[in-house]
């Protein structure tokens, strides 16, 4: 049997990067897109092949390790460049390559007119490489390579339109916030190294039970630090602030990186480290609470945003919160399941939004949309399916995963968190359908021709006001009618729509079928049974499902009511709760808060350090020594009259002194 050749999966996009870098200027757009998509497609194929090989094995042997080379080895510590494929990473790798491939294809259409087409695919491929490294790594350090690598690509892609101040600001913010998370992650890894002497998953997990006391302070500290890393990458409280800003990037980027793949890396990491987290219940509590809080907070902010991508961004943050509180309650499998389904429908949502934006000639404000259903039928349909999926209506994908999370939360007795999740589901359904309604239903709130003149004239206003405007200088389609996007965009939409509908069926579990769901079975070799996991009775399960569906339905109804049938309700509510609205609209002023407590003081403190400490104190001391010497020499200079006679006299005195010395001895 051939080796699965795991390393080829990340190597393919990397090769594409190299080729693009070297020969990209000769390839032209077609060649570039073929190269980039081809590489990812091949990687997808290789991933399928590897996973099939894995699946062919018996569940206990479903683990493949491939060591490429020893990265570095110092003293008793060593780190390898080696790859691991097990059921967990198999899911991730398939999602990453699969969704990635679709988004690559989508991008061909979306970015067709951008002058930096080649650079875009370069970054995208680089991202694929980093993400696959992250997912396939078999130790924390190599994972960290991917971890930082995706951060870098995210930085580059957010700031893709680098002439736009807000874009580069957002990119920088993303990178730095991620770095803060990485700081935690790195320290967490160091804890592991210092105590277990290794970064290899297998060895760490094998050694952990012997070296750590379950619930002890060390393991708690280590896992908390790891979780800090996860909050950075996966945009949880308190480090979520970068993700909404990241919408400055091109929409396919938002779909791929900031919805489907990269942001889930934190979840993946936590799930990957479940052995450790399970040993630290306190950490799990923290994870759960933070996840729930994030889910709620992001959802509330999402309620009032007007920018279509921002709504999706907050929805992403919120959904990530779900995943984390799934992990926090011990339902790691459910977390990963939600990662998968979320990848499908959220990618679809973003791509759909991208399609809308494309069709609307770079208009992102939902208040200026409406009634697009007829003009963009495929987009409309696929978006609708995705919205239903995220709202949690069975049998769409989102329902299964979200319901499992809520059920697990309830089952483990986290009722508060369960309640928060339910509330979050309500709001999710509401704001998602608000988005749907505002975009596709009702009457168009734009004038097809005048609107664009208007947009042109006030392009800069909008730019300044929202800061999140997909205005990137190229002027394709300005002034044209709103129409459906090209096939390269609609085909991926359609495929993702299918997945959004059916993707969740792999997780249909207990109440419907006998035994564990296919998903749980598949993940079992990695996650184990979770002995503490209580199962609810079937009626209770059904009751919970009913509750969540009802909540979702209520949310949908409210949305239709407030935004389609009686828009005055929305206005009234907004005016009634102006303060709350304001807080939500301004995202609870978190950015401003961080600015006030961290950014400004550090900046000013640094300035003071430089101007006062460095230039006055340290250099002052140094120069002071000089001045003192100068003073002393000015005194001594009096002796240097310049007259030879004086010198001769001094010499004579010296001779006399010498003579005296001789006389005395």
């Amino acid at each position, binding site marked *: 049997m051939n080796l699965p050749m795991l390393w080829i999966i990340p190597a393919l996009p990397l090769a594409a990067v190299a080729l693009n870098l070297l020969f990209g200027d000769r390839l032209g757009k077609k060649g570039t897109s073929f190269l980039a998509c081809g590489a990812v497609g091949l990687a997808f194929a290789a991933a399928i092949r590897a996973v099939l090989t894995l699946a062919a094995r018996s569940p206990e042997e479903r683990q493949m390790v491939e060591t490429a080379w020893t990265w570095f080895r110092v003293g008793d510590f060593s780190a390898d460049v080696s790859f691991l494929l097990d059921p967990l990473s198999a899911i991730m790798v398939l999602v990453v390559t699969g969704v990635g491939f679709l988004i690559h294809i989508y991008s061909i259409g979306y970015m067709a007119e951008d002058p930096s087409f080649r650079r875009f695919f370069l970054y995208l491929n680089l991202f694929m490489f980093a993400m696959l490294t992250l997912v396939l790594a078999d130790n924390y350090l190599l994972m960290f390579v991917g971890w930082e690598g995706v951060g870098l690509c995210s930085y580059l892609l957010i700031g893709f339109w680098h002439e736009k101040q807000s874009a580069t600001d957002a990119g920088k913010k993303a990178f730095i916030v991620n770095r803060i998370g990485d700081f935690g992650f790195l320290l967490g890894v160091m804890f592991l190294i210092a105590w277990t002497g290794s970064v290899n998953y297998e060895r760490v997990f094998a050694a952990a039970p012997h070296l750590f006391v379950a619930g002890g302070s060390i393991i708690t500290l280590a896992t908390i630090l790891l979780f800090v890393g996860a909050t950075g990458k996966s945009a949880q409280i308190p480090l979520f602030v970068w993700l909404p800003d990241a919408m400055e990037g091109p929409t396919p980027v938002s779909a791929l990186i900031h919805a489907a793949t990269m942001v889930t890396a934190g979840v993946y990491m936590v799930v990957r480290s479940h052995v450790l987290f399970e040993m630290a219940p306190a950490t799990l509590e923290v994870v759960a609470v933070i996840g729930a809080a994030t889910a709620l907070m992001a959802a509330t902010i999402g309620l009032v945003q007007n920018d279509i991508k921002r709504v999706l961004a907050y929805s992403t943050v919120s959904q990530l919160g779900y995943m984390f509180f799934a992990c926090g309650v011990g339902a790691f499998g459910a977390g990963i399941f939600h990662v998968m389904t979320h990848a499908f429908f959220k990618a679809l949502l973003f791509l759909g939004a991208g399609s809308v934006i494309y069709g609307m000639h770079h208009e992102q404000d939902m208040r200026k949309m409406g009634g697009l259903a007829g003009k963009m039928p495929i987009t409309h349909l696929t978006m609708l399916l995705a919205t239903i999926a995220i709202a949690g209506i069975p049998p769409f994908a989102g329902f299964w995963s979200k319901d499992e999370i809520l059920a697990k939360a309830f089952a483990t007795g986290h009722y508060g968190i369960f309640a928060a999740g339910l509330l979050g589901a309500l709001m999710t359904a509401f704001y998602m359908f608000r988005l749907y309604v505002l975009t596709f239903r009702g009457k168009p709130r734009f004038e097809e021709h005048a609107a664009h003149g208007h947009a042109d004239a006030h392009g800069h206003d909008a730019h300044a006001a929202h800061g999140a405007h997909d205005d990137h200088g190229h002027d394709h389609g300005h002034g044209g009618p709103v129409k459906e996007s090209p096939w390269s965009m609609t085909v991926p939409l359609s495929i993702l729509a299918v997945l959004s509908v059916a993707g969740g069926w792999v997780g249909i579990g207990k109440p419907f079928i006998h035994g564990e769901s296919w998903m749980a079975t598949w993940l079992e070799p990695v996650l184990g049974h979770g002995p503490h996991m209580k199962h609810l009775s079937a009626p209770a399960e059904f009751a919970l499902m009913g509750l969540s569906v009802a909540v979702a339905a209520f949310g949908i109804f409210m949305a239709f009511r407030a935004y389609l049938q009686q828009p005055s309700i929305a206005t009234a509510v907004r005016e009634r709760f102006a303060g709350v609205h304001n807080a939500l609209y301004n995202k609870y002023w978190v950015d401003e808060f961080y600015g006030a407590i961290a950014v400004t003081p550090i900046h000013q403190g640094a300035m003071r350090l430089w101007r006062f400490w460095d230039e006055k104190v340290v250099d002052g001391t140094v120069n002071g020594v000089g001045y003192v010497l100068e003073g002393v020499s000015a005194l001594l200079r009096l002796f240097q009259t310049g007259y030879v006679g004086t010198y001769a006299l001094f010499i004579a005195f010296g001779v006399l002194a010498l003579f005296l010395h*001789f006389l005395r001895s």
Partner: protein
Amino acid sequence: MVPYLFLGFAGLLIATALMVVLHKNPVTSALFLVLSFTSLAGIYLLLQAEFIGMVQIIVYAGAIMVLFLFVIMYLNLQHDVEKGAQIAVRRGIGWMVGALMLLFAGLIVRNGGFSPGPVQAVPPSLEGGNAQAIGRVLYSRFLFPFEITSILLLVAMVGAIVMIKGRPAADGAEGEKE
């Protein structure tokens, strides 16, 4: 007879040396210096250092002092004017220092406060003369310092010439005149 000669030369030496210092006219000073060098050469002869004595005359009297005279004449120096309080103070300090120094030195000499090392049992062979003996030592044990000295002289010569010639670009005309 030798001690008398020594005393005579010594008296001459001190007298002329004093005149060097005291006389206001530099030319006269120089001439007295020549005389004192010659007296010193006489003392050298008495101390059985014939070679050094002759070289003293050749080098000091014959070369160095001629150079002095040459320069004095070239600069056309007349009697020094030495008046004023500053000079008086200086003179006072100078003589005082001199007196002290002499006192100390005298005390040291009287106390035998010098230890020049062990006396060589065998006096140096003077067959072939003092000059030959010195030559033997000079070209064997002191060969390296000797060579160094020759380089020193060369350097001094070049230095003196360069200094006197001045900067060629700045005052080429002046150089021409000289």
